[in-house]
């Protein structure tokens, strides 16, 4: 007999439950799978925007003393390329995966706070739009993604460029924070019965550590950006040297955020490859406990290294030495994870599908990026490399080679689960090959020209420095990357011409998301699973290998019940599923907050309207029921 489902005042049953359709259903959604899809599509759009910004930078640098782009436009391009890729692409793409996967992987029906989840997406979208509006006024942010004081002061940045950055970053920060609180509570509190913390998929652990990093690191950024906002708008003197203010304070506050931020960018990627590699090696991850604890160690140590971004500012020998040591130390847990991935592949029965290629590509590229990172950890070496293209090479190897390759791997791997269609593996391999070649051609030569002294963030370079050939090669590489992305987009488009008839478990996966339909039903699981291992599906499918455990599908969700081995089926308590109500209050609050900040740029009346809308939205949100029939309040 089908289970009863209540949603938005209607009571229906699981076999009659239909996914709502239409634009309004997307605007008012609180379903984590839809929100994940929204994040995915939006972040891919901004990936194209950031990619075009990169191509323009590369065209300008192809030859010495090029006049293709002016210096001031160049400053806007590299600032926005970095800001976009970090805040509008990699973080939201990670959030897409948190949303799509975490509830399924822990056996829950949704996240702890579905409306807050919707809010996180909308405020990201509006923040992304706000920060990009500067382009339309010829005043895009232009002081670098790290906006160092006192270049950003009223005196030296008199236009609105820095204000777009300040307001945009504040709005975007709220998105990340809201999402992080949601996932921390979800992972701690919404796990299915039997899903102890040490049975969580590695991806879920990495999500938890990332979320903790976000809630601990973003406040430092918020404070720094607030002090900058006050300096620019209310004439405070925090970063004004003439009044004894300290630009160095900005650097510390920024990097106390900024260093954990790079772990925020990479840990989800580590989580994704930790899911993909075992499946295509047909072996569980080597050293699950070590992988988890290494992730936690990276998170904690990530707070102790920030001043390695400041080795050349004159901190003094003792602080510099301390931060050098802590930075070298953090290579240890990272190395542990890499050895665990290698250990997983070793002796495995390997299949080289696109997701696996992307994952292996990630591990190898990340090793290169990690090696250049360890070089930076030595202050005397860093004093030569700082502000040169060597640094650009390092962080692109870890962020593109690391995060992006992994995220693409995740896209290929989970596409059939969420869209019910498989991406074409042949085209996927073409995408991988082109992207791998293009990526290395673009970024490897940066190590050489960097060591030879080519500076960052300068719109051109002189003739006769011998950098011409490699810069040309880098530009070619960048266009090869662009071509690879085109291949991916074609693949994605073509997949939607098929009917959604992908199997539930096309890759022979180990974790709970593969136990649902493709795509999953809105309520995820008809019966909440009871879990007895961290590879529940493999235990179910291969009992001769992994030992006989009670079938997680059949066991009662009430842990006081004993499994009835003979019949395998029990009395289930969840004969009524409650779905959270769709609502537009999160959207309204997001609009209010964004207008509140936008008023600094467009006029105070907009701020007043924004604050009013925000208050209205908050009261509407709090007073409307999260579940059940809409009440008359």
């Amino acid at each position, binding site marked *: 007999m089908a289970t009863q489902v209540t949603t938005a005042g209607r009571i229906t049953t699981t076999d009659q439950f239909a996914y709502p359709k239409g634009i309004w259903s997307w605007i008012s959604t609180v379903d984590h799978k839809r929100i994940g899809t929204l994040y995915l599509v939006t972040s891919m759009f901004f990936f194209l925007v950031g990619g075009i910004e990169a191509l323009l930078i590369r065209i300008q640098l192809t030859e010495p003393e090029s006049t293709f782009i002016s210096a001031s436009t160049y400053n806007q391009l590299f600032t926005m390329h970095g800001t976009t890729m970090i805040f509008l692409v990699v973080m939201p793409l990670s959030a897409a995966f948190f949303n799509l996967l975490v509830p399924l992987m822990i056996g829950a*029906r*949704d996240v*702890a*706070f*579905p409306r807050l989840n919707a809010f996180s997406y909308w405020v990201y979208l509006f923040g992304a739009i706000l920060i990009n509006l500067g382009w339309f006024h010829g005043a895009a942010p232009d002081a670098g993604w790290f906006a160092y004081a006192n270049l950003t002061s009223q005196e030296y940045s008199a236009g609105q460029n820095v204000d777009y950055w300040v307001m945009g970053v504040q709005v975007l920060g709220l998105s990340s924070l809201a999402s992080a609180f949601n996932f921390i509570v979800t992972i*701690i*509190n*919404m796990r299915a019965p039997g899903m102890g913390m040490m049975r969580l998929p590695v991806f879920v652990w990495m999500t938890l550590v990332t979320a903790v990093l976000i809630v*601990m690191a973003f406040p*430092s950024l918020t404070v720094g950006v607030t002090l900058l906002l006050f300096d620019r708008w209310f004439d405070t003197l925090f970063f004004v040297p003439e009044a*004894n203010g*300290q630009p*160095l*304070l900005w650097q*510390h506050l920024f990097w*106390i955020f900024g260093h954990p931020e790079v772990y925020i960018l990479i840990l989800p990627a580590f989580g994704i490859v930790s899911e993909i590699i075992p499946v295509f090696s047909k072996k569980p991850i080597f050293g699950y406990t070590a992988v988890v604890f290494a992730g936690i160690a990276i998170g904690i140590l990530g*707070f102790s290294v920030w*001043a390695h971004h400041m080795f050349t500012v*004159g*901190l*003094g020998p*003792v*602080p510099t030495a301390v931060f050098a040591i802590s930075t070298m130390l953090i290579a240890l847990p990272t190395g542990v994870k890499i050895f665990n991935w290698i250990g997983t592949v070793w002796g495995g029965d390997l299949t080289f599908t696109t997701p696996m290629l992307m994952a292996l590509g990630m591990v190898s590229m990340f090793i290169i990026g990690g090696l250049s990172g360890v070089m930076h950890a030595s202050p005397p070496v860093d004093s030569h490399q700082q502000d040169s293209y060597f640094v650009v090479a390092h962080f692109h190897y870890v962020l593109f080679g690391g995060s992006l390759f992994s995220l693409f791997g995740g896209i290929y791997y989970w596409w059939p689960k969420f869209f019910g269609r498989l991406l074409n593996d042949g085209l996927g391999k073409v995408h991988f090959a082109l992207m791998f070649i293009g990526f290395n051609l673009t970024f490897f030569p940066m190590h050489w020209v960097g060591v030879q002294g080519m500076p960052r963030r300068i719109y051109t370079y002189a003739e006769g420095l011998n950098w011409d050939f490699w810069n040309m090669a880098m530009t070619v590489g960048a266009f090869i990357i662009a071509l690879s992305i085109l291949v991916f987009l074609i693949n994605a488009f073509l997949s939607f011409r098929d009917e959604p008839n992908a199997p539930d478990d096309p890759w022979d996966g180990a974790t709970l998301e593969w136990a649902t339909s493709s795509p999953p039903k809105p309520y995820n699981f008809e019966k909440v699973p009871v879990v007895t291992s961290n590879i529940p599906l493999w235990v179910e499918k291969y009992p001769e290998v992994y030992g006989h455990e009670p079938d997680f599908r059949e066991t009662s969700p009430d842990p006081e019940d004993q499994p009835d081995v003979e019949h395998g089926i029990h009395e289930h308590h969840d004969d009524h599923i*409650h779905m*959270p109500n769709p609502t537009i209050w999160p959207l309204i609050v997001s609009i209010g907050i964004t207008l509140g900040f936008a008023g600094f740029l467009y006029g105070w009346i907009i701020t007043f309207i924004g604050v009013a809308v925000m208050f209205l939205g908050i009261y509407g949100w709090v007073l409307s029921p*999260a*579940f059940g029939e809409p009440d008359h309040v």
Partner: protein
Amino acid sequence: MSSQGRHDASHGEHAHPDAREYALIASILTIVTGFEIALYFFTGVGYSTLVGMLMVLMVVKFGMVVGWYMHLKFDERLYTWIFGFGLGVAIVIVLSLYLLFTVFHPAEEVLRQLPSGAGH
């Protein structure tokens, strides 16, 4: 899905403190605050001693409000870990930055020459 949790779990085995216990805590906090203010008026106390004593009193008040009013002493250990972690990281960061800008700051000589007598 906003979940309620067990009704009885929220206070563990500890019964709701009665008004008397709260009044007692309030009185202690008042006395401690009074002592803090009295210290301010004692010009005889050396600066380092003053700062030290004020810090101790501050920590005592902080601990009492967190432990009793926020009920941390009686609630699930999980909350103590969560808040402790946040507080701990914050304290480490504040102390590190304070050291980086004072003890290790190369420009300390300049600070000593300021007319406000700052940088003691």
